[in-house]
């Protein structure tokens, strides 16, 4: 191109969407307040938003099912179009990219070279580590090597979905490909984990736009999840919670309780152990969510949720490898063993005592003086 590339800034984009300068300044002021900044900082924010180009995003796909991308484009606010055209520069994404083959790989390399430390890396899926990574290759290279290479100069890394955050289904036992979540592969990087299979669309776009709007990463919890969306369990904000507290449960599919929308706890609902925004945002622009449609939560945003099955029981096998029984079965067996042991001891001590009866009269035994003190 003849002219140097002109990148539209956030302001230009807003302007194009009919936002006047007055509203724009107001927006910047509100943002400064939200960030806890002094009013003197407003001009700097205005400046930044007026002139900053859209942030380049490289969206990698490893071992995954593309449900995260599908969820992303289901976002209702903002809509995917707005993000792709106005907020970020989605420079690399196998699923939506017009180009294919080496042209795509060239783009990735160019972005890494031209925007070191400035591009966002979004990872959907994870990498197989077994057998030199042959279980997932792109352009003849292993996904693992591509991930490591691309992560090196990334400004921030977002791990989309349970595959990238937790390992998800391919990492379930026996994990035949040695699939590992991103944080295990990039131990020295700060990674924003956005778990879920898939994550809620508006959670994905919410995380992304938070980073773009505030220029900083969201506050993360102990395992790298944004607190704003993964701070609480579904259970604590579930609209069926009154039935839980009352003790009114669905006992079988399509029973009276199911038709009345009672609590799905006894159908194995993982709401009490799952951190996500399902019970508040719900899915697909708030239309419904798994519990709202009568099926318990399967805990898809939780670490290792596939191995916490069967999904329709409250308890899975006890968390000790090699034992495939519920805690109650194991506990009752141990208690039974204790009773048997104790019983055997008791019987033998009784037998001993009665057996020794004739030999008792010796006054030398410890029995002497019993009751004397």
């Amino acid at each position, binding site marked *: 191109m003849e002219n140097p590339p002109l990148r539209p800034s956030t302001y230009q984009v807003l302007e194009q969407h009919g936002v006047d300068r007055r509203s724009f300044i107001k927006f910047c002021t509100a943002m400064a307040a939200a960030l806890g900044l002094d009013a003197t900082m407003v001009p700097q924010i205005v400046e930044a938003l007026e002139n900053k180009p859209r942030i380049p995003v490289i969206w990698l796909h490893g071992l995954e099912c593309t449900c995260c991308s599908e969820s992303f484009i289901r976002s209702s606010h903002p809509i995917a179009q707005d993000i792709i055209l106005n907020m970020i520069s989605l420079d690399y994404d196998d699923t939506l990219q017009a180009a294919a083959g080496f042209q795509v790989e060239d783009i990735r390399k160019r972005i890494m070279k031209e925007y070191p430390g400035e591009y966002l890396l979004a990872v959907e899926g994870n990498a197989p580590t077994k057998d030199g990574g042959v279980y997932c290759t792109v352009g003849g290279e292993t996904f693992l090597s591509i991930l490591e290479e691309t992560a090196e100069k990334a400004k921030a890394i977002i791990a989309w979905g349970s595959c990238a955050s937790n390992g998800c289904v391919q990492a379930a036992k026996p994990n035949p490909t040695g699939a590992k979540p991103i944080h295990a592969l990039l131990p020295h990087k700060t990674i924003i984990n956005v778990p879920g299979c898939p994550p809620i669309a508006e959670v994905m776009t919410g995380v992304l736009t938070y980073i773009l709007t505030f220029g900083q990463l969201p506050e993360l919890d102990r395992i790298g999840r944004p607190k704003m969306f993964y701070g609480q369990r579904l259970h604590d904000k579930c609209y069926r919670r009154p039935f839980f507290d009352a003790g009114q449960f669905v006992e079988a599919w399509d029973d009276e309780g199911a038709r009345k929308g009672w609590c799905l706890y006894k159908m194995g609902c993982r709401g009490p152990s799952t951190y996500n925004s399902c019970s508040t945002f719900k899915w697909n622009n708030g239309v419904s969510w798994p519990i709202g449609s009568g099926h318990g939560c399967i805990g898809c945003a939780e670490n290792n949720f596939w191995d916490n099955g069967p999904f329709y029981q409250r308890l899975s096998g006890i968390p000790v490898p090699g034992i495939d029984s519920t805690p109650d079965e194991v506990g*009752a067996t141990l208690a039974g063993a204790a009773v048997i042991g104790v019983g055997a001891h008791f019987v033998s001590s009784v037998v001993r005592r009665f057996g020794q009866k004739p030999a008792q009269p010796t006054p030398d035994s410890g029995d002497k003086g019993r009751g004397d*003190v």
Partner: protein
Amino acid sequence: MATAIREFDPKDMAQHPDSYFRREYVWELPVRISHWVNAACLIVLFLTGIYISHPILAPSGEAYKNFVMGRVRQIHFISAMVFMVSFLVRVYWFWMGNNYSRSGFPFVWRPSWWRDLFRQATDYLKLERGHVHLGHNSLGGLVYTLFVVALGWAQMFTGFALYSETNPSGFFGRVFGWVLPFLGGSFQARMWHHTFAWGFVVFAILHVYVILYDSTQYGNGLITSIISGYKFYKRGDLKHDRWVS
């Protein structure tokens, strides 16, 4: 049964001092209170805990009229708080009380501890009296360490971590919240908590039996000691003027 109660004879006692029991104040009041509070709490905790995982009552009527599950959970949580306080009192008394309150400490690095452990185990198996500790013997101490102290801590950590889930940014969340990711998530923490609970049942069976057996076989007044504080001993039995067995 075989022993006839005889007239007390001071001369005989002077001649055969080993045959006569003496009395010693072993369990101080905080130990005894803590014991019974723990026992009560554990029974309530276990029963309510099992109910929470397998709720069976199905109240009828509108939800607002009922609070069955909520009440059971409330009782569970209150018992947990009481248990924690009682447990911590006992931990405090470990340092502040008499030597008996420290007895049974697992000195796994001392051969004498292992010898006592072995002796006590064989005594039980051979159905012999051997000698008696006025405090806890090594075997008893080991069982209490594993089934009460370790399990108690484990249940408090997992339990309060699960309790904190309703308010992750609150006090319990800050203190115990790390346990959840440490154990691989909330579900796994719940599984451990549930599994551990059975440990108390196993303990209760062993504990009650051994107490009954000890008391009968050794004549040391073990059962009443946790009410009155006094245990009985004869010469050759061990008083705990130091911790080690």
